[in-house]
């Protein structure tokens, strides 16, 4: 067992050791992860990396290469270090990293140990309207986010994914309102005021269609496991629906893709997304647990959405 001397060590020496090890992981099959080395670097040296040097970027690349080649070993120490190193970076900087690991891969529900890292990256996009627009313009990433949110079996990941979606939608609305006020009625800049994240979520047929199909009991997997997973997804949808309703009631209550919605029993002349959640997701008289969730949903809905109606 190597005695650690990192606390008194030279950062450059530590970096050399780490770099050497990561290279071995990436190139020499059968190398085992030196947890201690990586953890110690993570605690003592990572926070102090000088941003003027290219060290951060170099380590990130090496980590990504190592993670790709890691087969059966636990990637957690490397993921933690990666998380620490990317902490101070903005969304734009993350996108510009020449990493072979894509956002979609990180968000894949089967890549459990990477999900939180991927969600952390997406959360950074909520900091500026441009970044949100950038993210919204990547349908495969948004689809990966929505898929992870509804299908993951890990409750912690689902909660985080829900928070990220909530934040993105909230900020998208708020920031676009701010922009609208600042810029005024300039048609050139009106595109900047649009809430692109909302459009992606509700306007994109694939994403909207996925939400409807995964949450509906129609044609569902009739096994107990499949049904339980559906109920869980439905509950997650209801939770986010409360937030959506608070931010934009019209979006929640209106119809978005009549042709798709018709497949789930919605009446195109009067029903909307909220009607799907409330009446058409569930087979009535069947799943009383779902009824309980629905009743809770109604109570939360009237408690949280107190906006007065504008008509009459």
């Amino acid at each position, binding site marked *: 067992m190597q005695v650690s001397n990192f606390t008194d060590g030279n950062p450059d020496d530590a970096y050399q050791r780490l770099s050497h090890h990561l290279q071995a992981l990436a190139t020499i099959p059968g190398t085992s992860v030196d947890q201690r080395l990586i953890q110690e670097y993570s605690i003592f040296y990572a926070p102090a990396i000088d941003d003027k040097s290219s060290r951060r970027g170099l380590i990130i690349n090496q980590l990504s290469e190592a993670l790709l080649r890691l087969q059966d070993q636990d990637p957690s120490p490397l993921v933690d270090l990666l998380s620490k190193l990317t902490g101070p970076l903005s969304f734009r900087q993350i996108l510009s990293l020449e990493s072979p690991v894509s956002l979609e891969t990180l968000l894949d529900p089967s890549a459990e140990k990477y999900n939180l890292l991927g969600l952390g990256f997406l959360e950074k996009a909520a900091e500026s309207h441009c970044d949100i627009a950038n993210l919204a313009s990547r349908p495969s990433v948004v689809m990966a986010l929505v898929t992870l949110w509804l299908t993951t079996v890990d409750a912690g990941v689902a909660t985080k994914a829900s928070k990220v979606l909530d934040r993105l939608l909230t900020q998208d609305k708020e920031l676009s309102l701010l922009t609208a006020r600042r810029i005024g009625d300039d048609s050139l800049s009106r595109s900047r005021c649009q809430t692109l994240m909302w459009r992606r979520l509700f306007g994109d047929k694939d994403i909207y269609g996925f939400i409807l199909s995964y949450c509906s009991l129609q044609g569902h997997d009739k096994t107990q496991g499949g049904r339980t997973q559906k109920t869980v997804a439905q509950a997650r949808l209801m939770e986010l629906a409360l937030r959506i309703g608070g931010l934009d009631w019209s979006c929640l209550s209106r119809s978005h893709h009549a042709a798709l919605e018709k497949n789930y029993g919605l009446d195109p002349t009067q029903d909307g997304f909220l009607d799907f959640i409330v009446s058409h997701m569930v087979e009535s008289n069947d799943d009383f647990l779902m009824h309980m969730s629905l009743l809770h949903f*109604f*109570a939360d809905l009237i408690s*949280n959405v107190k906006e*007065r109606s504008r008509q009459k």
Partner: protein
Amino acid sequence: MYKSSRDVSISLEYLQARGLHDRTIAVWLNSGEPARHSLDRTALFGPAAKYVSSFASNYPCSFLKSALVRPLLLHLFKSLSISSGHWAQSSNKVPVYDLNIIHSLPRIALLPQTQIGVTPYASPLLLIPVRNTTPEALYTLSKVFQGPAKPQSEDYSIIPDVEASPEQPEAAAARAAYFMYLSSFTHGSEMYAYLVGHADTTALIDTALAAMQLIESVTTANWAPLPSESPSNQEDRYDPAHAPRRPTALPTETQFCSLLPWQCNVGKPQTGVAALLQPEARPKLFPWLLAPPRFFSSHRRGRGDDDDPEYKVASRKWQLLQAFHRRLKEAMRTGEVDAQEERKLLEALEVRLREGFWGSGTSSTGREVATLES
């Protein structure tokens, strides 16, 4: 009184338009006979009750104007009419969800529907016991007597176009509810005898804490006087000859007193702290409040250990003592209570406070050996 127009919202309108509002309430209203329902159905009663609570507390005006008030009160009369044995054992007959509903209602709906004592069903609040009781029951009473939260002046989240909030009538109804409840005992002092008894019984710690919360709620309550004369508008007028009265009408002070069983003197206390100084509460409350904590077990591991129930109870009592002292001082300054008369009590409180949490040691049970606290 309850003329606020923020009594609907788009979300409520949506549920009403789709019939879901009425159907959900119907689930709860029909929950009266559990034996008749399947297991699945009974599981829905709790969430349905939560919906009713949310509706009544967030949309008080809408609730009071709706046709729900009378069936709701009838349902509560039924579900709360359980024997004292059931209450004492916290059996599953105790309707916890319905207790939640009671403290979510606008307090005006809890005021007497008919004269107390003429029929057993003057108000569902009167069916909540204080003697053989549960913590939830006592917390419900606490919340009702506490009155509405005072609006914070720095609360910038208040929508600018909101009309006069129903806080005033709610505060008046809270005071009326307290005196109504007190008057339901043969001797008013019984209520405080029971409460102090609970507060002293550390074996049932949750009930003890709840009893102290009730006393503190009365101490710091937000009350307002009932109107002194009837409003000119016929619609707003409280009319005891026509029961059930319109639930949005507050009785005047005189009308209210005529509903109570005993002789009602003009000049009932206007604030909670003053009410606690009355002969109904005083002789039971203060000897207990001024006594230092008593500890019975001589083999406790750590004195003042956080988990020690005796410590928890003593700690809560200390908080109550401080809260009462603060409030009394303030009341003496504002004239709510007679400063001259209460000077002695204030001094006694201050002496006790100066002694510190543990008391002076000389008044202990004798089992504690005096040691130096390091």
